[in-house]
């Protein structure tokens, strides 16, 4: 039981060491009594959501595109208001590590008052090489809006993963 407690403490220590890099690694080995293993880590944090803002549909079907840089292209016949942003994710890990990034290529959105829409999704890069401050990737997309698309709040979920090989 005691041993288990110790092990847990070490797991915590390993994470602390990871967060603080080399200095912590030295601190852990200085005791000479514990077998702390320093593990390589990866973190994934979301820094912004993919947002199409608000769209007023027109008499013909059209599209709204948000580039991976966040710039919006409002299709003919549509009125787009509000600020659009690309989805953005931050990855931290070993300096120089290559991380494959990607996810679903499309998503279906369901309206609160009925109706559906679909959006294609694009990723800024298939892989990123982490620098000393990590790396980031962005998700953009193109939303297909039907002719006289039913009003409402449309929501959908999509998968995004950062993959070590």
């Amino acid at each position, binding site marked *: 039981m005691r041993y288990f407690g110790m092990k847990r403490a070490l797991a915590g220590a390993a*994470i*602390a060491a990871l967060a603080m890099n080399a200095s912590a690694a030295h601190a852990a080995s200085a005791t000479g009594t514990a077998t702390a293993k320093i593990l390589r*880590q990866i*973190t994934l944090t*979301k820094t912004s959501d993919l947002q199409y803002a608000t769209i007023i549909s027109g008499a013909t079907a059209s599209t709204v595109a948000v580039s991976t840089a966040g710039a919006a292209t409002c299709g003919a016949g549509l009125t787009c208001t509000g600020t659009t942003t690309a989805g953005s994710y931050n990855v931290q890990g070993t300096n*120089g590590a290559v991380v494959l990034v990607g*996810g679903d290529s499309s998503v279906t959105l369901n309206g609160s008052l009925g109706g559906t829409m679909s959006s294609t999704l694009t990723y800024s890069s298939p892989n990123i090489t982490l620098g000393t401050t990590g790396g980031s990737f962005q998700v953009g997309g193109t939303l297909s809006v039907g002719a006289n698309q039913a009003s*409402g709040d449309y929501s959908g979920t999509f998968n995004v993963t950062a993959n*070590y090989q």
Partner: protein
Amino acid sequence: MLRFLKAFGLFTAAALGTAALPALAAGDLLVAPTRVILDGSRGTEVVLNNIGSEPATYRISLEIKRMTAEGGLDEIAEEDVTAAERAALDMIAFSPRRVTLPPNQPQVVRVGVRLPEGTPPGEYRAHMLFRAVPDAAPATAELKPASEGVSIALTPIYGITIPVIVRVGELGAEASIGDAWVSETRDGPAFNFDLARIGNRSVYGDIEVSRPGVAEPLLVARGIAVYPEVGARRVSLRVPGELAAKLKGPVRIRYSEDREIGGGTIDEAERVVK
């Protein structure tokens, strides 16, 4: 020892605090280590930490991914897996599969292998996926009623995968570096080279590109694998324009084993980058 642990406890809290600083979204996560190799009955542990600012529920699962010739990983639906891939899913045991963690709370995930009698030699691999389960309902009440427009709420379910590799029997593999070139992609310039593999297991290591006579490497890329389902892959690395220009000309490319297992050379080649 006690004093050390106490000091370390404080330090742990401080360090975790720092780690959590850039993270504000619920569902942000840390996973360590980034690769698991099991070659026998001994198991291992993977640490998952909630580095977000809110409590989050994480799901842990195994997926099959296949490497493509372009060096990507394709997700394979469970009904499309081969017998060997099925065997990998069945032999890797892990627990827990779902956990709710307050911010900065690590959780150890135990990973083990159950090798059925008579498992043929080979490398079996699945990818362990850690991801946050999004909050039950994307609070529709919060969204203002859009009487004449449509408002969009896209919720990403984001996560991390790490390979879990089980090696059975004596396995070997070699890799060789092919042509190297610089290209212009949709996302900017890239340094590319072909990497071929022979044998019955994957190869994994770090790439270092240097100019003969210059000590400082031009480019370092760590954690490049060629999995057994492909005989060759392209390695395509986005590089800044300035570096792309520098990489053209004679270079030495070295593919070496992971530093953790000695960093021995797998293959080394001199190439003239076009």
